[in-house]
């Protein structure tokens, strides 16, 4: 998985932003706020699982709260591999966006 899907990239960035609070509930609500739409649990959890398997995030158990019925949180962190991929993605994006001139561009049909 050298190329991330858009959702995967978003999740990785959310994990990075949330730092110590990066567990499923927070990631989902953080993304939902930014994306301005509702997300199902699976929409976040399944990509997160794939990212975990592919070694982009590492998980550790956090504290357990009463509201969770005494179950521990699974806190995710980015691995160096993820940081590299994110930077690469950012580079590609920047290059591509740098050449985009909005409606003035010739490649847009009218």
């Amino acid at each position: 998985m050298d190329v991330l899907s858009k959702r995967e990239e978003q999740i990785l960035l959310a994990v990075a932003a949330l730092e110590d609070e990066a567990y499923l509930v927070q990631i989902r609500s953080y993304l939902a706020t930014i994306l301005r739409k509702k997300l199902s649990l699976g929409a976040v959890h399944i990509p997160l699982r794939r990212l975990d398997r592919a070694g982009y995030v590492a998980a550790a158990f956090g504290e357990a709260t009463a509201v969770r019925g005494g179950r521990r949180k699974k806190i995710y962190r980015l691995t160096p591999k993820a940081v590299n991929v994110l930077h690469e993605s950012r580079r590609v994006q920047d290059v591509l966006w740098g050449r985009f001139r909005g409606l003035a561009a010739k490649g847009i049909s009218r």
Partner: protein
Amino acid sequence: MRRRGRTPGGFGRKLLAFLLPAGERESLLGDIAEIETEIAAREGPARARRWRRRQILRLTASSLVDIMIWRMAMMKNYWKMTWRNLKKYPGYTAINVAGLAAGLACCLVILTWCRSEISFDRFHASSDRLYRVYIKWEEGGYGTYLPGPLAAYLKESFPEIAEASVFNDSSQVKVSSGPESGVFAVPARVEPAFLEMFTFPLLQGDARTVFDNPTHVVITDALAERLFGREDPMGKGLRLNDGRTELIVAGVLRRISANSTLQFDLLIPFAGAPPIMKDWSVNSTEIYVRLREGVSPDAVGRKIEGVISARNPAQKTRLGLQPLKDIRLHDLEGGGRIVDIYIFSAMALVILLIAAVNFMNLATARAEKRAAEIGIRKVLGSSRGQLVQQFLSESVILTFLSLAVAVASTKALLPSLSAFLGQHLDMPFSWPLIGSMAAMALFVGLLAGSYPAFLLSGVQPLAAFKGHRRARTRGSALRKMLVVVQLAMSILFIVGLSVVDRQMDFIRAKGLGFDKDNVVVLSLIGDLERNVRALKEDLLRNPEILYASAAARVLDESNSSSSATWPGKQPGDHVVLGCNWVDGDYLETLKMEMSVGRFFSPLFPGDAANSVVINETAAKAMGLAAPIGQRITIRMGEIIERTVIGVVKDFHTESLHVPVEPFALYQAETGANLYVRINSGNLPKTMKAIEQAVKRIVPNDPFRYRFLDEGLNRRYRSEETAGRLVAAAAGLALLITCLGLFGLISYLTERRTKEIAVRKVLGASGAGIAGLFLKEIVFGVVLAAALAGPLSFWIAKKWLRGFSFRIPFSPWMIMGSAFTVLAIAVLTVIFQTLKAAGLNPIKAIRYE
């Protein structure tokens, strides 16, 4: 606020917990609980619960897909291994797939049959509120024929009943649209509300007004096409049986679907019915009601219970309501087709089980050979779980292969199967069916694969290389047990087959009280009925035609009945007398016999006005020791009082499931039907002669006839179907068991090739070697018979109890079945062992 977090509840949680990898289980469930609490605080607990359920469902689905994709990589390896193994032993593969496919195909057919049975009468929009009114007689027994005016009375008197209608179908009548035309069709008399109660959609015409005129009728599009071709049928005129009244087509129905109990070609308004159908004392028609929504049928049943006996205190009866949906499956007396459905479902299950056991057996036997492979795999680092997965996926792959074969062969065989069963079956594409078949295959695959998987994955690599004595003994004990179970099930099936077969033979052979063979029945309509005397004379000139007799009703159709009065009748006595009007040749034509007295005779011209002949049951029911000369009264529109001149020996008009009913014969010169007894030789020529005689009177009508035994055989059609299904199932079960035995024995002999060779070198004969294997099989069959005997005895007793006239169950049937199975098993063994014993011992010993 709540103190503790919510726990995602119930089954969904367990399922999810099962599917999730261990590392995710705790945190994810915690996440769900946390969000649910938050939603509960914001939007209430109900909303939160709904959210949780939806999320769990979606997570389960996506988790499953994810897991499947993840496992595919491994599957590819299993798939390859399975393929190699199947290719390596083509004989084994063929036996396994064939056996399992046969079992699955059998299940599929039975499933299809059950589905078609259960689908009956469920297409009506308000099928939950539709009921048939039935009558229960004080002295026992049920009836569905009721007085015609009851329908209107029920609707007027009971507000819970939204609509009520009679449904009076008759045998086929001639329908003609002009002097030259004429086709035969089944009419039914109904009330105007009929089309609103039932969902028989009108293609043309308005359901509410279509019956406003008593001469307006509704026909099906199929009949319209037969009568008028492509012309518009609306407003066209029709005549029934060349009658005087012209009926006008005011509506066209879609053809009635095969899964409707109510079958008809045209609907005629009840308003125009003959007076006898409007008589409160004659049970002449079925009655259906539609209840208002939310009304309890039991409560309505209790309210209408006494309607008939209140009008006529002599009739001690109770009315009740039977759901329309139950008519096909449940008889009022209890039992009915639903029993067949249970029996056949059980049979399908047992056959599937036999096939699964077979599969398991062969797989276990074969897998022992693979102990070395397993050992190597273990040495190379396979975990036990991986081995289990490998075996399970192998057997699941094999089952799905069999399922594909089963579906294809069922699809191909279904038309001939329908013909064999005498019932139309079809297997439309439907997800539930496919889903349940796939689930079944998965289940069988896992079941069959489980034993070898768990047994063999536990093999110690070292033991596997050294020779595998321990695994072998454990496996073979189980195999022996499974073989015994299989044999027992086969015996059970053969006993079932012989019981059904003998009972049906018994019914066929049992004196019906008349000779049903070689009797042609002609429907007399219009001119034919008026000229019956001429027709009879014309027919009897032919030497091949022995007798002819006109009668109002055909023996095998439902009879009109009425309650009777006789001298010496006590207030509590009640006899419902079935009636028929026949001419003086009836007795000879049908070869019935008199018990005492005489039959109608031309020597006594007063017979038609004064005499009646009753059957033995009627004499007994009325308690008449000397019936001759007694006067018996019934009401059939008018009061009919006649003197008994004779008693005829009992004859069966109903199925042998029910006892003979009291019956009376009255004389009439003509009737709607003509029985013609013919010589059995040269049938086509005789039929041609009959046709010519008929055409001389009505040259324009189509010639129609049927044989009396056809109708009577139809009475037992469900039993015949049952018999055939049992036969097919028994054959299949035996086949699968044989396949299993064959495979198993060939494997055993192959494994003991060396032993056989050594024995031969030391001087054993081929027979002696066969005996070695035979001992085990004979013991197995004896054990199986001991198991299957009592069980089959119990089941057969239960089935036979449904017949009023039945064969006794004898233990010889069990013995016979056991011997059949034994013979087949022994033949298999001998064939296989002799082949093994015939080999050159040198080759066997050199092997390895």
